[in-house]
């Protein structure tokens, strides 16, 4: 009997008698899949390492206390850009949060099963990946052109438009996870839909909705393209009315990074480190809070 003849002792038992072509194809897949994963991890750490080395050596107290230097002037910091970025980002989130949460609520609580809600939900996902520079162009024609001046408001609106679909999507997803028995219990007590939504459903989905807002925050904090033609950028303190250009970190980094002045380049690295660390921290916190990935 053939079956009785034992395999050579040195053949790995897992493989037995497998055609070389099959074995090689399998080996290629395993090696390349592992290698590709390794490459992506290496790229992440390479980027982080670059930021730590270049940005870390450029960080100093001046970065947080002095305003951005003009062309050719010595020293300087980023304090006006950091403050401007904070204002724009928080304003953007402040606008996007109520609209996004309410729209997400409509999709789940009122529009479930309706064609309108399905279409809005679908187009919201398209808006989620729309090129951010076009949102900048849109806000330019909508706000900057009629007002005749660049403004922080225009920048905040552009950021809000980018944050909006993120918040709508996560809110809708999270509300969808709330068991309908909760809503039915609320309705059985005689509460109208609005009350059930505000007092029961929102509370049940609170952690998820907050995560969505954090993810939106992480998304817009580093956005550069939509600010180019809206908030613009400059090397001064912005006016409290936010009219005229408002200095902000991403555009400052963009303008300083490849500039001919050494102190500008140093500041660009410091800014890049600050912004990346902030964003990665926000997204880690958000992901940890939710333990569910919403990259899209």
């Amino acid at each position, binding site marked *: 009997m053939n079956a009785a003849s034992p395999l050579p002792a040195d053949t790995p038992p897992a493989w037995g008698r497998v055609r070389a072509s099959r074995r090689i194809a399998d080996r290629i897949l395993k090696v390349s899949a592992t290698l590709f*994963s390794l490459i*992506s991890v290496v790229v992440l750490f*390479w980027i982080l390492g*670059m930021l730590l080395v270049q940005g870390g050596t450029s960080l100093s107290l001046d970065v947080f206390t002095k305003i951005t230097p003009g062309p050719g002037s010595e020293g300087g910091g980023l304090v006006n850009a950091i403050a401007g970025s904070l204002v724009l980002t928080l304003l953007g989130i402040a606008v996007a949060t109520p609209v996004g949460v309410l729209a997400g609520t409509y999709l789940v609580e009122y529009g479930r099963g309706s064609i309108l809600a399905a279409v809005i939900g679908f187009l*919201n996902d398209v808006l989620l990946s729309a*090129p951010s520079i076009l949102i900048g162009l849109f806000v330019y*024609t909508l706000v900057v052109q009629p007002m005749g001046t660049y403004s922080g408001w225009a920048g905040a609106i552009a950021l809000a438009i980018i944050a909006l679909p993120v918040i709508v999507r996560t809110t809708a997803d999270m509300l969808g996870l709330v068991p309908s028995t909760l809503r039915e219990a609320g309705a059985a007590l005689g509460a109208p839909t609005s009350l059930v939504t505000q007092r029961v459903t929102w509370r049940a989905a609170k952690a998820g909705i907050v995560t969505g807002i954090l993810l939106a925050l992480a998304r817009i904090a580093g956005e550069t393209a939509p600010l180019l033609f809206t908030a613009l950028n400059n090397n001064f303190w912005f006016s409290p009315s936010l009219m005229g250009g408002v200095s902000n970190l991403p555009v400052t980094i*963009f303008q300083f*990074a490849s500039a001919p002045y050494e102190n500008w380049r140093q500041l660009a690295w410091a800014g890049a480190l600050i912004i990346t660390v902030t964003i990665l921290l926000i997204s880690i916190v958000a992901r940890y809070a939710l333990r569910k990935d919403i990259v899209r």
Partner: protein
Amino acid sequence: MAAGSEALSYADRKSGSQVISLTGRNAIFRALCLSSAILVLAVLAGILIAMFIGGWPAFREFGLGFFTGSAWDTQNDQYGAWPAIAGTLSTAVIALIIGVPLSLGIAVFLTQLAPGWVRTPVATAVELLAAVPSIIYGMWGLFVFVPLFARFFQVPVSNLTEGLPIVGTILYSRSPTGLGVATAGIILAFMIVPFIASIARDMLAQIPTVLRESAYGIGCTTWEVVRYVLLPQAGVSIIGAIMLGLGRALGETMAVTFVIGNANRLSSSILDPGSTIASRIANEFNEALGLQMSALIATGCILFLVTFVVLVVARLLVARMKAL
């Protein structure tokens, strides 16, 4: 709504004023939710309309020639979008050629090969790559990748392919600075990897374990399981994920602006500088006036329509799998 009316009839008997406030509040809340949802539609429609109106003077002036023309002459007000369109498409194609195998490899690694203790850190790292801002990719590209790429790829390849037919046209660069269409495509590849990989991983993970185990049970290798069982199962939605990556690559601005070299002229070599629609808008829009501004918005309009179609198809394909 039924719940609302019951509350009304009960409260009706108790106090009139509370009824109005309760039903009123209910109606107002519903209207607020609805108008917020409509606002999402309005923004998308608004972008399209604004692009079209803003670009109309250029479309009217140059007609169909705007799509095929390659002049970008601010002195004589002659504008054609072809070099930017070609740059956008070629960077996106290069990004897909590199990014798709990378992403699928990562998805296979995470779902099929990685032991538990490796899976979570690698998955987190890939997701964090998605969170890194585009401008940081641009700086990494310009200061780290470009010099390496020029020295170890562009110079040797240019030396090798100089004078050769076809290959020499595509790969020879007169000034190997490292900046160019290929560089932009490679940086874009790393930027779209997390998006494609994350969806592909979800799709592979959704496939019932029984299918996989029965394939292993009849003696399939991992390659055969992936190729003949998993990919056909997840096929359509993985194409959707790839198109989602394509949508990202087409509209990406800052990273590309850093490394593409920003040349208005169209070169036949992918190692030469070029420009994309997004990079050209980013570079020129603030100084543009009149017809040039309109031409830039018109290219933005083209970009919007193309990405819109790509993203709609992508979402439909991805959604089909989720519905199963």
